């Protein structure tokens, strides 16, 4: 079985993003970029499935500009067998990303596709569900635990009410939650080895997909700030302050 993994590059989660004063975007020049944390988890899960003998090949997929190569090399260094770089200079909507994955699925015929539940830049939380719909296959979103056996995935999902377990026939789409696993660190020798692994480059324009761009971002703003409050010195003062506000 092959596993296709979404491996998106995003602004690192430690960066406190700034909105440009003219409202045309956020400042991304010189900002540290990293793999979407949920995608590192997706890749880790795929690698573990390969190590267990459930899968033979793990392919990382990145959709983005020409300079994505170094990022994809990190995925290869972590252990993916090969990478596919769908190249585009444009911003891609989740629907376009899903349509792109579908094209790759038609070619690669994976038994499993693992994506992050959300990318921490746009926080859209859509791509996996859209892909499953277009592919007409099961989706197991927000996965906290995955078991694969007998052509089925049994997935425990982190939902508002608690933990939901579902069973999905393969092929299927899984999206990862944070507690699914702890991604391994990349070791130096692996970075060397990754240099020999293949990266296929495909132009997004050559896939014949309708770019879904019916949603336009027209303005960026900084969020309303909460102002710094007061400090109290002990429990009694805290109770008094809360009583004064009518909260106790």
């Amino acid at each position, binding site marked *: 079985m092959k596993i296709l993994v979404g491996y998106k590059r995003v*602004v690192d*989660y430690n960066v*406190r*993003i700034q909105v440009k004063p003219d409202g045309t975007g*956020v400042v991304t020049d010189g900002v540290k970029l990293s793999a979407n944390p949920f995608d590192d988890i997706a890749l880790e899960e795929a690698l573990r499935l390969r190590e267990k003998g459930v899968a033979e090949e793990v392919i990382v997929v990145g959709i983005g500009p020409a300079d994505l190569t170094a990022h994809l090399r990190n995925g290869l260094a972590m252990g993916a067998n090969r990478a596919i770089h769908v190249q585009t200079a444009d911003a891609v909507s*989740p*629907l376009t990303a899903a349509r792109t994955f579908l094209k790759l699925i038609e070619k690669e015929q994976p038994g499993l596709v693992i994506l992050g539940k*959300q990318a*921490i830049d746009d926080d*859209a*939380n*859509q791509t996996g*569900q*859209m892909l499953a*719909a277009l592919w007409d*296959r*099961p*989706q197991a*979103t*927000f996965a*906290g635990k995955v078991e694969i056996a007998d052509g089925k995935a*049994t997935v425990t*999902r*982190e*939902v*508002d*009410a*608690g*933990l*939901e*377990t*579902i*069973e*999905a*026939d393969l092929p*299927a789409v899984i999206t990862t939650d*944070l*507690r699914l696993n702890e991604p391994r660190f990349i070791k130096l020798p692996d970075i060397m080895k990754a240099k020999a692994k293949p990266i296929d480059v495909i132009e997004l324009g050559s896939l014949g997909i309708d770019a*879904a761009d*019916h*949603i336009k*971002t*027209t303005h*960026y*703003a900084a*969020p309303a700030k*909460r102002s*710094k*409050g*007061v*400090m*109290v010195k*002990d*429990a*009694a003062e*805290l*109770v008094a302050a*809360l009583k004064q*506000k009518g*909260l106790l």
Partner: protein
Amino acid sequence: MSKILVIAEHLDGKLNGATARAVSAAVAVKPESIDVIVLSDAPDAVAAEAAKIDGVSKVLTVARAENAHAMAAILAPQIAKAAAGYSHVFAPSTTFGKDLAPRVAALLGVSQVSDVMSVEGAHSFRRPIYAGNAIITVEVDTASTVVATIRTASWPAAASNGSAPVEALTVDVALPSHTRFVNLQQGKSDRPDLQGAAKVVSGGRGVGSKENFDIIYKFADKIGAGVGASRAAVDAGYCPNEMQVGQTGKIIAPELYMAIGISGAIQHLTGIKDAGTIVAINKDGEAPIFEIADIGLVGDLFKILPELEAAL
């Protein structure tokens, strides 16, 4: 004029309060009508609750055995079919809505507007990106159906004084059998629901252990609060996942939020930005949580919580 279809969220025969919040957002669009759709094996009780929500024009029920559990792969084709004639489809931005709405959107051939914070016009909305560190305005082209999830913390629940008619709907669509429900382990709790509670007390890594977390529960019970946690506390096994507050947990807007032994990472703060009053108790006076807290108290939580209880 807009016609809006709101997807009802429910569990165990009860309507989830997030539905009335999604209706509030629908009202803000100033549409011609707002219909709520209830998909269930036995929708009547839920439909009766939904019919009371102010602003609802009618409630549509789709009763099918396959709808016994909220499985996106099964519900989405029915909703996509029922959406014909509607300009907007709204769902709450809960794990239910986040799982389901994008699947509906893809079937309708549109992208989704996730986490709507405000309605600027029938096709214009504001939503957060980068864990709430930037707010964008998006415009959906007017020829497309608007599929959106509604950020529940940004919207009050619409009141329940109405009496909309309930109509049964037959949706003729084949449903897949490739995805099956196995079970749901629900955290049992008599405490107020985290997403609807007026007061929430949350514990973080500073609480130190699962046993120690009792001190948080005890204090919360004393003031009638729901209980939440940071990711670090959940990861360490102090409490179950459904208690996580933040970017990847629950986004909440209680009148009072008390962060106890929580440092205040941006991913946590995203979940509480809309709280009325934030109180922080932390032994580190430099902890970032104090930059946004309305009331801060530096000290050891194991000393302060008993004192607070005594002072009440």
